[in-house]
């Protein structure tokens, strides 16, 4: 089995990736760089692999969408992160979606509880582009006035889903949109506005 290497410099690369992911989460809609030379097994994208190696460990159960579970990928994740791969999205701390346009309903994932809103799933959506696609106009904490984010592909009914997710606050899921080398986040705190 061809097992591709992890980070060449595990400490520094994970730190700089963590910084980018944190920046993206703190300023929703901002696109942050995720540089790496990883060559993860298909169909995991390079950006999603960087997040996986940075955030996953033995305590974070991972759920993979339909085309992802494969021996190569499961083995790669387990080898480098020791994260257990689960089939029940309710139990997952992270979910990687290789086909975001076919994402299952968000309430299929763990939404956290009022006592422990942090026990919710973080969704990692592998998108093709963070420049094209329908503009999403965002407001909320971490955003000065408003910011526009574009990404594709995304679920067609994303605005409705995000509104429902926002209504659950402080419960709810967080989204990370990744391409091969960049990341943007839609945490549960963002509100979608229609006005441009």
């Amino acid at each position: 089995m061809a097992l591709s290497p992890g980070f060449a410099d595990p400490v520094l690369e994970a730190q700089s990736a963590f910084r980018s992911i944190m920046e993206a989460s703190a300023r929703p809609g901002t696109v942050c760089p995720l540089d790496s030379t990883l060559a993860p097994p298909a169909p995991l994208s390079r950006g999603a692999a960087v997040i996986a190696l940075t955030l996953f460990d033995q305590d974070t159960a991972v759920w993979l969408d339909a085309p992802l579970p494969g021996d190569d990928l499961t083995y790669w994740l387990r080898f480098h992160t020791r994260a257990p791969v689960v089939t029940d999205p309710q139990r997952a701390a992270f979910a990687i979606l290789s086909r975001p346009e076919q994402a299952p309903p968000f309430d299929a994932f763990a939404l956290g509880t009022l006592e422990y809103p942090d026990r919710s799933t973080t969704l990692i959506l592998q998108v093709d582009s963070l420049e094209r696609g329908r503009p999403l106009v965002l407001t909320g904490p971490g955003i000065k006035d408003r910011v526009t984010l574009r990404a594709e592909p995304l679920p067609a009914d994303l605005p409705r889903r995000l509104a429902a997710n926002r209504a659950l606050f402080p419960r709810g899921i967080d989204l990370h949109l990744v391409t091969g080398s960049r990341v943007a986040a839609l945490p549960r705190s963002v509100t979608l506005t229609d006005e441009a």
Partner: protein
Amino acid sequence: MAVLVEAERQELASLLAGLEPLPAHEIVRQPETGLVMLQGRIGGDGSPFNLGEATVSRAVVRLESGEMGFGYVLGRDREKARLVALCDALLQSESCRPAVEAKILAPLRERIHDEHRQVAARTAATRVDFFTLVRGDN
């Protein structure tokens, strides 16, 4: 593996250098140092308990031909973990195995065996045989 981990880093490096040219390989898991919890059992069959943590370094390398070698050594010597992993991978490769056996394992085994024998001999020299004199009653 038992032979490899008892070797010194310098020793491994120079023996591996004698094996040139080495097949192309890449490091799958960079050498890293961590702690491993050691478990013990009282009396060999009692309930397990945590004895304490030991410092361990590990690395994983893969040869071009696909063999993966794992290196786990006690201590913080990460370079040694990498060399052990490389030897482990080479041992799995059909084409390299004889050379590794002859040029690395054999001399190491010889050296380690000699050392053990010397220690045993030194210990044996201090041996004391205890015996009880039988005192005659008559």
